[in-house]
């Protein structure tokens, strides 16, 4: 029992001190209960939003933590969709879901790694142009390959089945994707609080200072691309079974890369859950507002990019977190002013000349 407690104590700081415990309980209850109380259309939309969240979390790592940018993220997701889909299909390799998904993931990571090598030494506009170039190249090669995308013919993909559990129904598949999303958030949270997560964040914040602290900026920028590629791969592998056939490549063209980028920019780079919330809003609002009028997800994304950029790196979640932590921080600052054990007596220390020098 003590051993279990000791192991669990290693992970307690994974929970933010700024978020009350009941917020986690409410979030879990809503996520689990959602599929039980809404129609299958909304269950499907929830699943699609979760998959989009996984892809967007990759951009949060790359842009928010690594200080890089990618305009090829949709292409990476699309590549994983078509490669893993082809590997799953009976007219393709006919592989099981996990093996096919792994293939899609490996290809997405490989492409991301390829981009990362030159971008690690480039900056800003050059990285944007390079990644946009990759996006267009993938659109004109992989997406136009009818063998991979299925062309005009209808290709069917079965949903996975593990350990005797079938994920064929929309509700069951929703829970599978939710589990993958929760694992992704948990893994990213633990990574973020590890030495490598801190190093990546610091490289994204201040490359020179990171280098002076013994952290290779190149290594961590490459790592950010690899993580983003892996999450694009996972999102892609989960997509084909959702639609039960390869989706149209219009979902993965260049403007969709901006759509994905808009999610972490709107949510802010501090909160993983914020990314999920914004992905849910961007995915569900057009359907919720259908009776009033047409709301394109791209309009939401455009507004999100504009407002998110205006608010700053914290985004909407940063505004909320600032509110939550301001009280705690004010109390600690007040306490620090009261006690200052190493305060120097300016008049009696051997460096009194310093004070006089500064005073002049």
């Amino acid at each position: 029992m003590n051993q279990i407690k000791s192991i669990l104590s290693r992970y307690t700081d994974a929970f933010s001190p700024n978020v009350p415990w009941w917020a986690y309980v409410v979030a879990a209850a809503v996520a689990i209960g959602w599929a039980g109380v809404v129609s299958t259309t909304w269950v499907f939309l929830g699943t699609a939003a979760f998959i989009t969240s996984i892809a967007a979390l990759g951009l949060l790592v790359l842009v928010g933590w690594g200080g890089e940018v990618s305009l090829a993220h949709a292409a990476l997701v699309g590549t994983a969709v078509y490669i893993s889909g082809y590997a799953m299909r009976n007219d393709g390799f006919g592989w099981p879901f996990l093996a096919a998904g792994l293939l899609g993931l490996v290809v997405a990571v490989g492409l991301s790694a390829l981009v990362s090598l030159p971008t690690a030494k480039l900056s800003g506009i050059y990285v944007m142009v390079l990644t946009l170039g990759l996006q267009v190249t993938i659109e004109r090669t992989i997406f136009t390959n009818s063998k991979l995308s299925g062309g005009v013919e209808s290709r069917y993909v079965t949903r996975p089945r593990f350990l005797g559990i079938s994920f064929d129904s929309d509700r069951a598949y929703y829970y599978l994707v939710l589990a993958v999303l929760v694992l992704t958030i948990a893994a990213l949270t633990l990574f973020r609080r590890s030495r490598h997560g801190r190093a990546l964040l610091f490289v994204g914040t201040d490359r020179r200072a990171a280098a002076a602290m013994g952290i290779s900026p190149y290594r961590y920028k490459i790592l950010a691309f690899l993580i983003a590629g892996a999450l694009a791969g996972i999102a892609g592998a989960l997509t084909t079974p959702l639609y039960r056939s390869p989706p149209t490549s219009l979902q993965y063209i260049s403007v969709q890369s901006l759509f994905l980028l808009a999610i972490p920019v709107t949510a802010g780079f501090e909160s993983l859950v914020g990314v999920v919330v914004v992905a849910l809003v961007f995915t569900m609002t057009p359907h919720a507002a259908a009776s009033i009028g047409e709301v394109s997800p791209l309009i939401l994304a455009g507004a999100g990019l504009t407002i998110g950029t205006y608010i700053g790196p914290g985004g909407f979640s940063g505004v909320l977190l600032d509110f939550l932590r301001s009280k705690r921080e004010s109390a600690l600052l007040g306490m620090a002013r009261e006690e200052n054990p190493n305060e120097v007596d300016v008049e009696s220390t051997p460096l009194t000349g310093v004070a006089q020098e500064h005073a002049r």
Partner: protein
Amino acid sequence: MITQRTSPDGVDLRAPEERRAEALAILEDHLPEQVKSGAVLEARNVSKAFGGLQALSDISLQVGAAQTTGLIGPNGAGKSTMFDVLNGFTIPDTGTVSAFGQDVTRSSPWVRAKLGMSRTFQANHIAMNMSVEENLLIGAHLCLEGGLFQAALRTPKAYSTERSAREAVRAVGYLLDLEPLMTVRAGVLDFGSQRRIEIGRSLLGGARLVLLDEATAGLDAVEAHGLLELVKRLQIDLGLAVLIIEHHVRSVMNMCDMIYVLDQGTLICSGPPSVVRNDPQVREAYLGEERSV
């Protein structure tokens, strides 16, 4: 382990001297063995030009073990360029740099950091959105173990080094008056506290040599004095080698064992404070007038 005699509301009741001694002991355990004698850093005949501008001409300097060495000069003298050459951000056109007996002329800053060289910058270079503790932990990056998965999954070995590093971070927090602020974001603190974070971070990476680039820039007289006092005390207590760029000549005279004076990219004087203070060339070049520094 910091042993605490605490009041019911969690306040440590021990005397400051007792806590300071304990914090220093923890930090000494965390740091590698300090070099006791000789030179820890040596630049020989370093020159660097940017286009037509000769930023450094044939500069040689040494930083002695367990000493505070000053690098002074008027604006544009080449001090920061020299720091960049010593730290690895700039490769010199000619000349060599060696640290701890190894030639590091063409080594990257992170390779030099692994040898025990760390630095601070003129403006604050800290992560404003991270807590004080996390900023300090960044400094301990090189002392932590565990690859990507071990560190994220917190395997016993990785977790054990992380725990030791957090203890060293708390010790540095105490020594630099940052202890009550560990969970506060660096961005909400005053400039002086942010400077202390940067100095603390530079210590935690296993430093044997710390380069301080205008540590007191932007601070008022009392804060500057307090900060330099803290630096000097830590330098003596831990036996560190410190190279400091400082605009306030009297501060340098008071705290340094050896001083190098640059003017327009050339070394015009070097020696202990008593020699530099009375050098007519220094008075002329640095102050632009005949008066004692």
